[in-house]
């Protein structure tokens, strides 16, 4: 009678493995003949294009083409959706974005919120990326020690990575509201309520905190991998050389961790510039516009308005792309020898 219960997971497992095996088998054998033929026709190295084709087709259609349309939006006006119906207005959108009496005071700009967003984004990126790397590093170092329950702690720190940005922001918003959990805790300990989301500095702090909270686990793991790849004998040698822990860290750990650090830095940077969901739900860009970042400005202008100004939004997105491109290139240049095989 136990048999029935014992056998069904087995049967399920058998079916699943059978199915997987079938798929693998078919995927191996069906494309092989045409690929062999193509290999003969194209030769050894050009066959690479065949491997690239599916990705490139999808990529061109669903990523590149939209980006091109977006470029076209940037030089057109109106609220029409189809590019063909949109009146061409040249650089008017860009002129509007860059129309300022005084570039050092965004309130004199035609699009004050755009400049405010650029300023906020720059501030956010420079602080958040540093803190992100710092805390990922600390956590990785801690998790790299011989500790009880390392697997558990590793999962704990990774878990928030699984949550969708919206959920993350929602949970923290509930915690940080005037009548939220955090203030309840503070009050129960005899403190005064703090308006976390009303004070611009606090609000900015929490935006950084929450994004670091949510994403840190991923970068921690990358760094942890790097730490574990550092051979033991290097440390032993350092110990023999009577290096202090701090010197060991600075002169050995850090340089050997550099490749991982660069990956972390690059990913964190791109991610930071593109921050949107978490902040949108957490602070909505407020108080006022203190946490309005570029992507949110673009979203607000082109999407969340009754009068959707695709042109202006697209022009701003171009500016964003240029900023990111420059940042990435600068970073690649700085670390060219270190990544990229």
């Amino acid at each position, binding site marked *: 009678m136990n048999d029935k219960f014992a056998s069904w997971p087995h049967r399920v497992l058998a079916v699943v493995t059978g199915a997987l095996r079938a798929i693998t088998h*078919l995927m191996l054998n069906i494309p092989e003949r045409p690929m062999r033929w193509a290999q003969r026709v194209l030769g050894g190295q050009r066959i690479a294009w065949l491997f690239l084709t599916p990705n490139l087709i999808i990529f061109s259609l669903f990523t590149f083409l939209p980006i091109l349309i977006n470029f076209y939006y940037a030089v057109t006006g109106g609220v029409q959706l189809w590019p063909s119906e949109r009146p061409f207005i040249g650089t008017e959108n860009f002129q509007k974005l860059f129309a300022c009496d005084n570039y050092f005071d965004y*309130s004199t700009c035609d699009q004050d919120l755009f400049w405010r967003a650029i300023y906020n984004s720059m501030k956010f990126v420079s602080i958040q990326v540093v803190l992100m790397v710092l805390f990922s590093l600390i956590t990785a170092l801690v998790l790299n020690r011989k500790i009880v329950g390392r697997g558990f702690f590793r999962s704990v720190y990774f878990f928030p990575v699984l949550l969708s940005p919206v959920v993350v922001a929602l949970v923290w918003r509930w915690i940080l509201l005037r009548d939220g959990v955090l203030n309840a805790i503070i009050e129960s300990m005899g403190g005064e309520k703090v308006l976390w989301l*009303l004070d611009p500095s606090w609000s900015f702090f929490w935006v950084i905190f929450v994004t670091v909270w949510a994403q840190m686990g991923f970068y921690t793991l990358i760094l942890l991998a790097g730490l574990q790849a550092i051979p033991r004998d290097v440390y032993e040698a350092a110990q023999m050389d009577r290096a202090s822990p701090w010197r060991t860290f600075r002169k050995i750990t850090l340089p050997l961790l550099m490749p991982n650090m660069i990956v972390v830095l690059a990913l964190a940077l791109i991610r930071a510039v593109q921050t949107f969901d978490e902040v949108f739900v957490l602070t909505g860009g407020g108080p006022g516009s203190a946490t309005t970042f570029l992507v949110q400005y673009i979203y607000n202008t082109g999407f969340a308005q009754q009068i959707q100004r695709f042109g202006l939004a697209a022009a701003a997105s171009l500016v964003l792309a240029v900023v990111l491109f420059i940042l990435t290139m600068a970073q690649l240049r700085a670390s060219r020898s270190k990544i990229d095989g």
Partner: protein
Amino acid sequence: MTHPRTSVARTPVGLIAFLFIIATALGCSKNDEKTASQPSNSTSPAAAASTPSSSPSGSAAELRMQCYGDGNECEVTRELLAGFEKKHPNIRVVVDVVPYKAILENLPIQLAAGEGPDMARVTDLGGLNKYYLDLRPHLKDPAYWEKNFGKTLDWYRAGRDDRGIYGLMTQLTVTGPIVNKTLFDQAGVAMPARGATWDDWVAATHKVAKATEVPFPMAMDRSGHRFAGLAISMGAKYFDADGNPAVVDDGFRNMAKKFIDWHKDGTMPKEIWGGSGGGQYRDGMKEFQNAHIVMLITGSWQIERLDKNVGDAFDWVAVPNPCGPAGCSGIPGGAGLVVFKHTKHPKEAALVLDYLAREEVHAEYMVRTANIPAHAAITEKGLDYKLSLAAKTSLNTFMGEVSGILPPAYVLQGYPYNRAIYNATVSRLGQSVAGELSVDNALKRITADINEAVKEAQRK
């Protein structure tokens, strides 16, 4: 020896498994079709049962209705439609419940791209006018609509000459204040009577707050719509004589200044307006429910929720809108069901709306969703809401407020780009509350934002 098999040897196992997968996949897709051909909402077994395979007259029509709900609106609609489907067995209405965001942001894009559902419950009543189907030719009795929905039909129309009938109000809302009566009792302060000015109310609530140690006398939902009610009471007109937006006038300016002052002097908590950015909506319900606010300026839609959530914690009551120099106006609002031009079944869609507009159906809908009807006859007769006495009283207070609404409020509600005005109001005044902009600069920005947006919308 159990050495791994070669690929040749693996074939039989693989093939069998593959056939199995295909079979499963087919089975699933068949299931899909089955589910697809049923009304989506599992709350209405009656609807599913009433879908006969053969249709007596004409071919079967499936109508897609995109619906968002603040409460149980979509469910109730679906259940009411069961009755309709019984009468018209060849018409099926599938109610797709979506987040409001989908209606607000995605639907216009879908419509512009020539896609989208047959019908939808929308709030941009005037803004989407160019996609609406004029129901008039399909309606059995247009006069019934004219008579009962006369006031609100204009909101859907393109301009003054447009006589079309485009939609059915599923919810009429009126803005107005809700007051924590218990706090007044505890403080021993008398509530200002109808006709009291804003300043009277501010003074009274201040007294209450002080006596009861409640942090804030007042709060208002973060919404340009709510603000418009106040501004119009102060004399704001929002439009010039030609009907073009001229938002910032003396009335608007006075209200804005007062409003910012209220935040500065602690009358209102800054975090609702100042704690968010852009045009985001926030309400003050959490604070009101925890008795941290004496008076919340919100609207009729919150009553059912308050009734449920506050329960016995304190007494609350809706009061008439306080007055300004121009009047004591709230502002109407609401959502309506509309049919889009691209539908393949215009006649059937009109039948659906006609059914939902019938007095007894409409009344049931209003009672069950605890909304205020826009239907003249029903309003006249009154409705027996299934709510507590306090809630019923409050709902009636709000219904009474409809008569006090000043004309600019109706014009504004019917203006196609009203949300652009609301958005500019919220985001700029919000910045001002947060201390980023002076009131004057905020007002300048509001004007600029609206003008620019409207100019863009008119560019061809």
